[in-house]
């Protein structure tokens, strides 16, 4: 069985290239779906529907702690007890 292994030097690029080009029609379709899905996720969903909420509330990194502290204090009922 060892003779089945190609004797040429191992090359990552040709492995991927031949792997993708030699794929069945179903496999290729699934990969296209995966790539389209990733493009939609990172190019559309992430920037439009999943903005970093905390980053939008403050001007710089150092103000994040203050914002979270205020939110927690605001939600607590310690001053109404």
């Amino acid at each position, binding site marked *: 069985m060892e003779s089945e292994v190609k004797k040429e030097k191992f090359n990552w690029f040709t492995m991927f290239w031949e792997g993708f080009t030699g794929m069945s029609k179903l496999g290729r379709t699934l990969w296209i779906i995966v790539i389209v899905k990733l493009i939609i996720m990172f190019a559309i969903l992430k920037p439009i529907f999943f903005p970093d*909420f905390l980053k939008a509330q403050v001007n710089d990194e150092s103000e994040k702690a203050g914002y979270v502290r205020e939110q927690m204090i605001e939600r607590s009922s310690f001053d109404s007890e």
Partner: protein
Amino acid sequence: MDLLLNASAVGWARGQFALTAGYHWIFVPLTLGLAVIMSIMETMYVRTGDEKWKKTAKFWQIIFGINFAIGVATGIILEFQFGTNWSNYSLFVGDIFGAPLAIEGIVAFFLEATFISIMFFGWDRVSKKMHLASTWLVTLGATLSAFWILVANAWMQYPIGMEFNPETMRNEMVDFWAVAGSPVAINKFFHTVTSSWGLGAAFVVGVSSWYLIKKRHQDFALRSIKIATIFGLVSFILIAVSGDGSAYEVTQKQPMKLAAMEGLYEGKEGAGLVAVGLLNPKKEAYNDDVNPYLFKIEIPKLLSLMGYRNINAFVPGIKDVIDGGYTLPDGSTALSFREKRERGLLAHKALADFQQAKSEGRDTDAANFETIIKDNYSYFGYGFLEKEEDLIPNVPLTFYMFHFMVMVGGYFILFFAVVWYFHSRKKLAPAVDHTGCVACSGGSVWSVCR
């Protein structure tokens, strides 16, 4: 539905995260289970040189690949939601979550992603042993990935190895090994991974049985069933063992969760485990005198034994956890909900005073308030609860889910034993030639093939 229609933003955030996490969790356990099964099949191929094992392994590797791709996609959306839905929380726990999630990404996921390419495209490019090593490394990567995610999850159930810093508003990690080696994390990991193995085995047996019924690819189906039944049987026995470990940890660290799982309102010594029971829908409050059960059949003393390794130990019920006053495993007396809440509110007030003192440059006062926060920090979360009922999970849902899960676990031990029996007696597909590797005769998976 009521939750979402009347919910504030936090209700919607929870609903969205729960939906994504639930969807993600359909694929992850199957990935973990299939990974081990396909690795065993490829090991059979390398040991025997039988090309049929190679084809069997390759088939399940394709199913694994599709499942893996969907699991990754849903996992990425969960990470997005940390920023949108849980941005304040992400900052609050970022130091703890950051380390295991970074290790998961850099070590486990990269290990998996690197060797998965060799597993799919490298059949004719690397030696059989190198390919087998790659497949097992994919399995190891997937399993390690689960470990680090569960370390983060276990920390939320049982926070240790950290110190709260009111200045940065972060729970800062002070002991990495306490977080990584948390007994809750270790038990959760073994229970989750063995459960995933069981799911993978059930899936393989299910698909293979369909092929047998259709009388298609029967040799492939029998080979798959052979591996999956033995693996499934071992997995479900391990699930029972790791489940016992989980029950012990839940009792020690989260007594309210255990009480809800068992519908136990009044604690007692030598508590039994409910084998079968029907909850009384007329039970509306934790402290009314209505019997919580319409009927139940108990296994005497088993809950005390599982929870405290002592058949006569006292197991607190929902009422006890709220009222306090019972003795904890460390010998101290449990505080009531009200006492815990007061301490939580004390920590909140100290946090507000800390902020005020800092803004006015009163550093000595700020240091004193910081001490008050740290002294009461264990109860910080209780300060956000308003009433006793806020502490109680949905008892019927928890009770029935837990008991359904235990019953399914028991059923699958029987299921795999029966399938293995019929397979070993060659009765699953009598018309098929059972020579060679299909001649399963019990004993070790590794020794039955030529």
